[in-house]
Each structure stands twice: as C-alpha cells, then as structure tokens.
C-alpha cells in the first residue's frame, strides 16, 4: 500500500514560536542532577591536577544540567576563586566530575 505515512499528519505549523518554547521545555526537562563526587574521586582529581597540570587532560564537567567531555590544556589554576582557566574559558573546580588519568594506576602485585 502506497500510504503517505506520517506525511499526512504533518502539523499545520502556523506558530513558528511554538517550537522555540517546546525546545526550551525539553532542554529543561532532560536536565539531570549533579552527580556526587566521591572522596576517592576527589582525591584522584586532586592528584591529577597536581601532577599533570601541564599536560593535555580529558575533563568531564557538569554544566547547567548536562554532562560534557572535553580535552584541554590548563593555563592557570586560581585557588582563591576556585576556578581552572583554559585558553578562552574557565571552569569552577566544583563542576569537574572526572579527569581521565594520563597514567592509569597499574596493580603492583
């Protein structure tokens, strides 16, 4: 059967603005709460920042309800403002969820 399928149920898009508000609503709805950073995770982040702050690192950060991953090189760590500066933006230290370990810990035994 040669049906037009979903084509015939195409909305009559008289209101262009409707989509703007729908997108906004879906963006708000899909937000997740900030993941907890465990004590060990915190120590790991602390250690990597101390030892490898001159390398390119892979960060996982939480921003406005969503998790993002990016690779970047730290320009400066401001301990007073609790911020990490990259080339053209900064990230508050509390928003860092994880950093990929450049030298994964190998079991010695």
């Amino acid at each position, binding site marked *: 059967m040669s049906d037009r399928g979903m084509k015939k149920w195409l909305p009559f898009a008289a209101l262009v603005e*409707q989509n703007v*508000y*729908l997108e906004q609503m879906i963006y708000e709805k899909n937000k997740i709460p900030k993941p907890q950073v465990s004590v060990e995770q915190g120590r790991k982040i602390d250690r990597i920042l101390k030892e490898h702050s001159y390398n390119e690192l892979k960060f996982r950060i939480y921003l406005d309800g969503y998790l993002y991953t990016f690779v970047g090189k730290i320009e400066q760590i401001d301990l007073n403002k609790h911020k990490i500066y990259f080339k053209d933006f900064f990230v508050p230290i509390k928003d860092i969820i994880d950093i990929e370990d450049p030298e994964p810990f190998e079991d010695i035994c």
Partner: protein
Amino acid sequence: MKNDVIFVIDMKAFYASVECVERGLNPLTTKLVVTDTTRKESTIVLSVSHALKMMGVPSRCRRKDLPNIDGMIFAIPQMEKYVKKSAEIVSIFLDFVGQDDLHIYSIDESFLNVGPYLKLYKCTPHELALKILSTIQDKTGLIATCGIGPNMFLAKVADDVDAKTSKDFIAEWSYDDVKTKLWPLRPINKMWGVSDGYTKKLNALGIYSVGDLATFDKELLIDEFGILGEELYEHANGRDEANIREKYIPLNKGLSIGQVLMRDFSKSETPLIIKEMCDELTIRLRKINMNCNAVHLGIGYSSTVDGGFFHQCQLLTPTSVNSELYKSLMYLFNTYCENKPIRRVSISYTNLTDKGVQQLSLFNEYESLDDEEEMYKTLDKVMEKYGKNSISRTSALSSSSTIKERHNQIGGHRK
C-alpha cells in the same frame, strides 16, 4: 505497529480555557471569548469557551458576528502564555511516554502511542487515558478530551466525533467499531481528511456517507483522486499505516512571512514595511543556515480598489545578506507596484540551498558581503540574548513602522 494504541489528546477550547483558569473561573461553565478588543470589530475570535459553544456560538467567527449574550467576558489574547501552557502540557505527556512515541499535531493537540507502555503502567488504555487527563487537570486546571484507537486515523476520528459528548471525555474505538460508528458518519466531511471541496466531488459520485466511500470501487477512486483516493478508501475502512515513530521532517523548501496592515499604506511608505519584513525573515534564514536563490513579493491592495500581484525573481548568486535580498525585493516592488493604497504585504524566500558550497560570481565583492553577513550574525546574537526589541533600525521610530508592534506579537496576535 500491531500492538499500537494511539491516544489523541485535544484541549477543550484551549485559549478560552486558559483565560478562564487564570481568572479562577470554571472553564466548562464560564461564558468567555478570546478576541482583541483593541482592534476593529472585524477582528477574528480566537477561541470560544465550552459553555458558549453549547449555546450555539460558532467556534470560528469575527467579533461582529458574535451574538449578544449577557455576561459574556471578552479576553485579550496572550499568545505567549498559551504557547508556554502548551509546552507545559507536552511536558506532562513526556512524563508518561518517550519522545519517540509523541507527535505534536498542533498547539493543543498531540498523538501519543501508549501501546508499549501499558505493561509498565499495568492498566487498560481507558484507565491510562483517565490518568493522563486528570494529571492535566490537576496541574493546569484545563480540560482535555481523548480519542483512543488502534491507529492514528481512528483515534483522531474517535476524538473528533465521540470524545466531546462522552461522559469522561474519552472515546475508544477499535477495528470492530468501523462498521457501526465510522460508516454512519454523514455528511462525509465529518471524517478527518475530507475537505468541503472533496465533499462536493464525492457527492457527485454518489458518495454521501463514510460507508458509501468504504464500499465504493477502489480503482475508480484512484482514477478520480490519485494517491489521495486510495488514502480516502483506506481511511474509510479504518486503516492507517502511519507509524508515529517515523518522524517525517519536511525539507526546508522555503520561508515566508506576511502581514495585513492596520490601515492603508501609500506606495512611498511600503518599502519600509518590506525592509522590516525582509530583516525578520532573513534572521530565520540565517538560523537554519541556508542561502536563498529566489525571492517572492506579494502585494494586496486595499479593498476599495482590490487586486494585487505576486511576482518572483531569481538571484544571481545565493545569499543570506539582508541588503542583497532587500535590493531584489525592491526591484520587484518598483517594477510591478501601482500607485494604489496597500493593505497586505507578503514576502518569501525559496530555492534554499545549504551554505558552504556555492558557485562564485565574478561580479560580486565577496569581502564586503562577508563582512556584512558577519555584522548581521552579531545582531542576531544580540537579539537572541536580549530580546528582539533590544536593537532595531532607526526607521523603527517612524510612524509607519510596524516592527516593534510585531515583535510584541505571536502569530499576528498579542503576545
């Protein structure tokens, strides 16, 4: 597809009900119409509340056609509020089903495929519909109707025909109801998808009810109406193969914008209107990251002289720069416009192509065009962040400008 259970959920007198709830009144018993009382009396009535519809007030009419009823409340439209409310209701649907199983059909109407969720919620379709409707009423105070069917078409017709009169506003149709409930429908335009024009053509073939259509010769219908003939035949037999998960996204064929002016404009005032509409539409063009190859200009003269024209012109090179597009529109305007009072203006951009790849022309100065485009992109960003009235041409201050007013409107009605 086999286990689909489709809901059509439709808000009862949506705009009017929102206004009732805002005033703390019962949307079912309040006599309220939504219409802009600051405009002339030939302005359209956007919505009529349930109680007035029961008294025989037509749901689509102009303000001057409204009958004189005591205690009728006039509400000025607040489009932004309605669109936000609509998003709120869609958000409730998304609490029940995933985004894939939802199809938004209009501002107050959505299709939901709840088939895959019935096991999860451990209830019958009817119980789930009740749950969704009562959630909507609890959260927004609005009343909705629901049509339930095994496919989108039957659900829609169930909603249109039965849901409004049934006691809990839910109508459930199955394939067994096709002969008893769908076939007796007459005149035939009560069935979804049959327009007044089709009704005439079908009547000429001796088809007056859905039952006549369902038992008519399929081949003859195809000869007469083409693909649509087959579709009508299948619909009349309660069949619809559309799968709600196969989202159909139309190609961006063109963008258009139009407005009916509040008074007659002279030929010398109109270029400003065209410029403002051109700006408005070009923002949308840049937003979808396309270039335009042809522009159309439509002008309608005032009712005292009648007539008008609609012409198009091809551009030499695709572009999304305001000044280039305005130049072509003005070419059309100067070539075809007569010295008559103007009431309607519409422009559209067609033959859209992706940005990125394009044939260069020897006659354009690309550097200055690129600079200009960069400037407009920056303006777009400012407007997106701080609102559309945050930055505008100086001409917006002149008396014939409509742009500020239009920015305070949605769909041509007050925001």
